[in-house]
């Protein structure tokens, strides 16, 4: 009798656990690396805002769930998802094969090229192994830009890796770095609009090869959370359909430049 009781209790516990697994996500925590202007940053009043934030909140509204943003430095953002510190990552994360092995991506919600930025007096017009010889290149640690620069230029140049994009911009202004490689809109809003010095884009914007630069930005989920990803995809399609997406896009990137 006792055994039967404990068995049925066990069964109850398992049932409870599995229903918790399949819970209808009504509270979703989203990991984000701040600041990464204009994608995610804080206003002077300390309020979290940016393209990802606005779009993310809109998607949550459509799905009828409450979303909570959890700040996490970039180099630990995927491990943080795995260890359940949050349920999704919406932080300008490029979809590529290396990451696909770790996480499940939503449909891409924006595509964005990378670019080289340097002080206008650096005097090179494109970034190649020859022109970058002996220079100090700044990248954010663990980004696809880091991978690209590490694989292609570590033999000829020094690479400085930063935890946040802000520290990197600070060192660019301090003249510790010769050139940095980052997402184009980030460089645009932090360096091109900087009042400290005059910066320019060196060469073309870069989005090839796909092996590094992937297929646009996506929202990342744990592999098994397919239902959640599906819900985000549906909401995203809806937002893109009815023009809300364009409205948010224009808020941060203006009319031109739309790809």
């Amino acid at each position: 009798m006792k055994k039967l009781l404990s068995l049925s209790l066990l069964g109850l516990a398992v049932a409870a656990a599995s229903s918790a697994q399949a819970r209808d996500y009504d509270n979703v925590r989203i990991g984000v690396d701040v600041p990464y202007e204009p994608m995610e940053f804080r206003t002077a009043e300390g309020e979290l805002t940016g393209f990802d934030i606005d779009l993310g909140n809109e998607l949550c509204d459509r799905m009828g769930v409450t979303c909570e943003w959890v700040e996490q430095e970039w180099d630990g953002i995927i491990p943080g998802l795995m260890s359940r510190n949050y349920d999704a990552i919406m932080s300008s994360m490029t979809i590529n094969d290396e990451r696909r092995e770790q996480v499940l991506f939503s449909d891409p919600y924006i595509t964005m090229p990378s670019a080289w930025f340097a002080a206008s007096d650096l005097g090179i017009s494109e970034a190649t192994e020859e022109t970058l010889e002996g220079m100090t290149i700044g990248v954010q640690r663990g980004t696809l830009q880091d991978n690209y620069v590490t694989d292609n230029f570590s033999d000829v140049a020094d690479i400085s890796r930063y935890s946040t994009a802000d520290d990197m911009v600070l060192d660019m202004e301090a003249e510790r770095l010769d050139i940095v490689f980052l997402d184009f809109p980030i460089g645009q809003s932090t360096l091109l609009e900087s009042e400290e010095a005059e910066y320019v884009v060196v060469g073309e914007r870069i989005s090839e090869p796909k092996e590094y630069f992937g297929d646009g930005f996506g929202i990342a989920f744990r592999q098994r959370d397919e239902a959640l990803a599906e819900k985000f995809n549906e909401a995203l399609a809806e937002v893109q359909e009815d023009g809300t997406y364009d409205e948010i896009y224009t808020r941060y990137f203006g009319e031109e430049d739309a790809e």
Partner: protein
Amino acid sequence: MLDISTWFNDLLAGNTIFTADTLGYYWEGLVTTTQLVFLSLIAGLILAVPLAIMRSSKHKWISLPVYLYTYVFRGTPLLIQLYIIYYGVVFIDGIQETFLWPVLREAFYPALIAFTLNTAAYTTEIFRGAIKATAQGEIEAARAYGMSPRLMMRRIILPSAFRRALPAYGNEVIFMLHASAIASVVTLMDLTGAARFVYARYYAPFEAFLFVAAIYLCLTFAILFFFRYLEKKLLAHLRPQDA
């Protein structure tokens, strides 16, 4: 030579994280960490000896400035000191034009300066304690011999103080090795920097950090061993004698 490299490549073929490339980063990190810790300890030690003597002075105007220095550097986190010396200095107008810039531009030297000042502060206090603890009898004996304060410091107080300070200083060396792990926040590729790089690239926190922890353990073990040897040598007169 070729044999060794093929053997090594075969050994590494089985995994995706510890390739010859990433081991290269760890090696680079080991070199940077060792350089940084070793140089800052040497410089800190050289600074600490005169500072400790000043700190034990009876004259307030000599001991107080040293006290203030050790108070500030022991009273604030090393990480903050490093931030101030690395990111803070660039806000001094025109620093880029001075002779200091070639030094401050590299991440290595600001880190070295911060670590040196920090360890010098702790070492000063360790030595001061040891100087203060000199047996009164030894000092009286030295006086009775007519030694000048200077000679007494050199022949009697310092040699015995250094011996007494040895175990505590050994700890400080280990603390310094572990504190150096923060060097990666200013882009230095030290051991921890290498681990963070591997972690971020392969999303493998366990492998990346366990491996680097093992390296730190080996380094700590070497330091412990060295200090035990020194203590055996220099503190031989304090051990109970076997028959």
